[in-house]
């Protein structure tokens, strides 16, 4: 399952743990993508809401896709406030094959950005402001508003 942490991720510990657990599996390639909060737009932090039940379904579908390629995924994400210059997510691929790993990390990270049920807020002057203009409507959005 996706590992969810309150606040910033303990990146070094997560990477060390995932790496260590992979060594006996003969996987060959390990590619984590670590996302860190950038100082821009005057923010103090980003903040996240996560809806776990649908995140779990999305993630299990990706694990199935990875398994069909002989690969495996891992993911960690923050909930709540994540100050600038600390990290909010890690997505990772393990695979015996280099090409599979490189293609899968790209597809997994992009789909995560577009489809995972996570909402982002800027923290500015202590206020939590929905990052509406950087957000993406999920596939199939709008059905309830079709007649308006």
């Amino acid at each position: 399952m996706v590992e969810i942490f309150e606040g910033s991720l303990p990146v070094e510990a997560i990477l060390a743990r995932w790496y260590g657990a992979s060594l006996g599996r003969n996987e060959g390639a390990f590619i984590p993508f670590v996302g860190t909060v950038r100082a821009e737009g005057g923010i103090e932090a980003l903040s996240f809401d996560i809806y776990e039940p649908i995140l779990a379904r999305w993630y299990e579908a990706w694990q199935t896709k990875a398994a069909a390629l002989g690969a495996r995924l891992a993911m960690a994400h923050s909930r709540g406030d994540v100050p600038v210059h600390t990290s909010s997510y890690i997505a990772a691929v393990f695979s015996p094959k280099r090409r599979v790993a490189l293609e899968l990390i790209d597809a997994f990270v992009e789909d995560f950005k577009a489809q995972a049920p996570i909402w982002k807020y800027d923290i500015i002057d202590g206020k939590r402001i929905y990052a509406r203009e950087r957000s993406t409507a999920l596939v199939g959005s709008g059905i309830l508003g079709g007649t308006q």
Partner: protein
Amino acid sequence: MVTVEFLGPIGLEDMHVEASTLGDVARILQNDERVSAWLATSAVAVNDELTSNLSKPLKNGDKVSLLPPVCGG
């Protein structure tokens, strides 16, 4: 009764409504000005499964979730 929950930034308490399809839920929410502006950009899940079928039947105890635009990472 079905429960309607509003995820992320919508920021409303759960609603409990009488509805036998998602179309019924749509009509109720379109007439609620606290939520109507979110409908065009929100996805819908029934019992935590995303759906785009407005005629999907609902039964007593079902949960309908509204998911506004997302941004992980």
